[in-house]
């Protein structure tokens, strides 16, 4: 099997007495969508934050493209190709869509140490930015201020920013939350197209979407990984049915 792009190795992180993430080991392989599910408060977002470098683990390590990145900061990991979206959309609200995405191009290529050229006239930045905008399904919305976007469009903008990084993997934290049936279906189709380009670790609540999209599913409950397998295996797993699917049904 191909070498995983991401490996979380016995990652743990507590907040006070709470073990938010408890010895979680998890892999993301090339070409797959790996879904991460679990009830609210299970530690999914914390796990994403640990992988992205926003939170320091108490124990364990993160391997990105085979390299131990545990000591690297968020920006460094992003430049290695870790693209992510946030559970609560996180963009620069005063910027236009194009500026937001150009910022991501800046981060992944060339850096910030140009003082002279006007960024928005720099084809080396706006070209890839427009491409990412089109890939995320936001064509024609480039000049709209991010603050004026609909909820669903803001989600797509985040995906466009992640794509502009030329990511080697994507971490998407509940990208479909609050999108409505139609929006979620559209986003599902987008993720499905992306799969061949970049593997995705997908945190998602929508079970239909999860089972339709993902190659593998891991289940987190109270910080612990309680099951991992194909969609069919997970559906059949008694533990999972008890802690999670049972609740949802």
């Amino acid at each position, binding site marked *: 099997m191909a070498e995983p792009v991401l490996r979380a190795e016995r990652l743990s992180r507590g907040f006070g007495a709470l073990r938010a993430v408890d010895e979680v080991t998890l892999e993301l392989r090339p070409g797959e969508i790996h879904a991460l599910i679990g009830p609210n408060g299970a530690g999914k977002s914390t796990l994403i934050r640990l992988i*992205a470098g*926003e939170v320091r683990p108490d124990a364990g390590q993160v391997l990105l493209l085979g390299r131990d990145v545990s000591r690297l*900061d*968020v*920006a*460094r990991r*992003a*430049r290695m190709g870790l693209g*992510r979206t*946030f559970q609560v959309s*996180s*963009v*620069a*609200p*005063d*910027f*236009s869509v194009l*500026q937001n995405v*150009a*910022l*991501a191009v*800046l*981060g*992944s290529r*060339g*850096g*910030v*140490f*140009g*003082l*002279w*050229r*006007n*960024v*928005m*006239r*720099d084809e080396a*930045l706006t070209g890839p930015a427009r491409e990412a905008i089109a890939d995320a399904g936001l064509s024609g919305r480039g000049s709209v*201020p991010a603050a004026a976007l609909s909820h669903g469009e803001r989600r797509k903008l985040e995906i466009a*920013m992640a794509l*502009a*990084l030329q990511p080697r993997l994507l971490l998407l934290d509940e990208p479909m939350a609050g999108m409505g049936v139609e929006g979620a279906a559209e986003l599902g189709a987008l993720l499905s197209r992306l799969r061949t380009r970049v593997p995705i670790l997908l945190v998602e609540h929508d079970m239909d979407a999860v089972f339709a999209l993902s190659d593998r599913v891991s289940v987190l409950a109270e910080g612990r990984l309680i099951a991992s397998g194909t969609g069919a295996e997970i559906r059949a797993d008694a533990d999972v049915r008890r802690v999670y699917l049972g609740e949802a049904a």
Partner: protein
Amino acid sequence: MTAAAVQAPARRWSREARVNTALSLGLLAVPLLAMAAGEPFWVTLATRAAILALAGVGLNLALGYGGLVSFGHAAFFGLGGYAAGVLASHGMSGRPIVTWPLEIGGTTQMLAIWPVAVAAAALGALVIGALSLRTTGVFFIMITLAFGQMAFYFMVSWPAYGGEDGLPTYVRSRFPGVNTMAPLQFFAIAYGWLMLALWLSWRIAGSRLGLALQAARQNRQRLAAVGIRPKSVLLGAFVLSGALTGLAGALYTDLNRFVSPAMLSWQTSGELLVLVILGGVGRLFGPVAGAMLFIALEHLLGGISDYWQFFLGAMLLMVVLFARGGIMGALAGRDG
């Protein structure tokens, strides 16, 4: 605040561009009219406005574009001011500034003084910025204030350059081909620097660094997530900001032919903040509008009442509560 700054410059002659031109010409007209009317004092006021505006353009880089509320910019203003004062006084007396490990003398050439003043302020900003940027929000305000106060008390208690009495330099430093003691000619130098700094600030705002800087103001988490370290960007801007404010400090020493710890006081930091906020935070010409209004108020109200700063405070409150774009917002519209 404005997203327009990083967009490609508008092709049409925007309202903001017209206001900016009017402000530039207005500031230029004051000393010319004053000389024609035989009122050289007004030239001095206009020069003061230009120099404070220059300091404000510096502060605006950090405050306006980066969202860094620095309450310590007087330190950079004072560093530039003392660099100019110390160099000039040694230049005149002929005594070297240091004799070991090598002998360094003073100078009365502005062209030599400016780089030193800018470098001193930039270095100060690098140290203060690196330490202060570990914090955010109110803590950042407090720690920059604390560093400013440290610089102030240092100069007060250091007797070599006048301590709390300050250091007179008697005559202005020289500039090739210019009689710097002639009010109008010295104004031209200050005005030229202001225009250059505005141009620089405009270029920075539209540059890669400017884009990242304005993103850092809006959302540091997002900036890091696309691979750019917010602190590096903010520190870079803070250093540029301090450097420009330091240059203004050097000119201020020459304007007054005197430098004292008052330049480093927290009131100076406060005044710089006030004039940027009055003028319009994050607006290219905000500090120009703010400095002109500030000097006008200081002169007009200061003559009527010792409590003119009370009125200034009231105006500031109005701006913060009702007109968040400041003067530029009122004249040129919310987003330029």
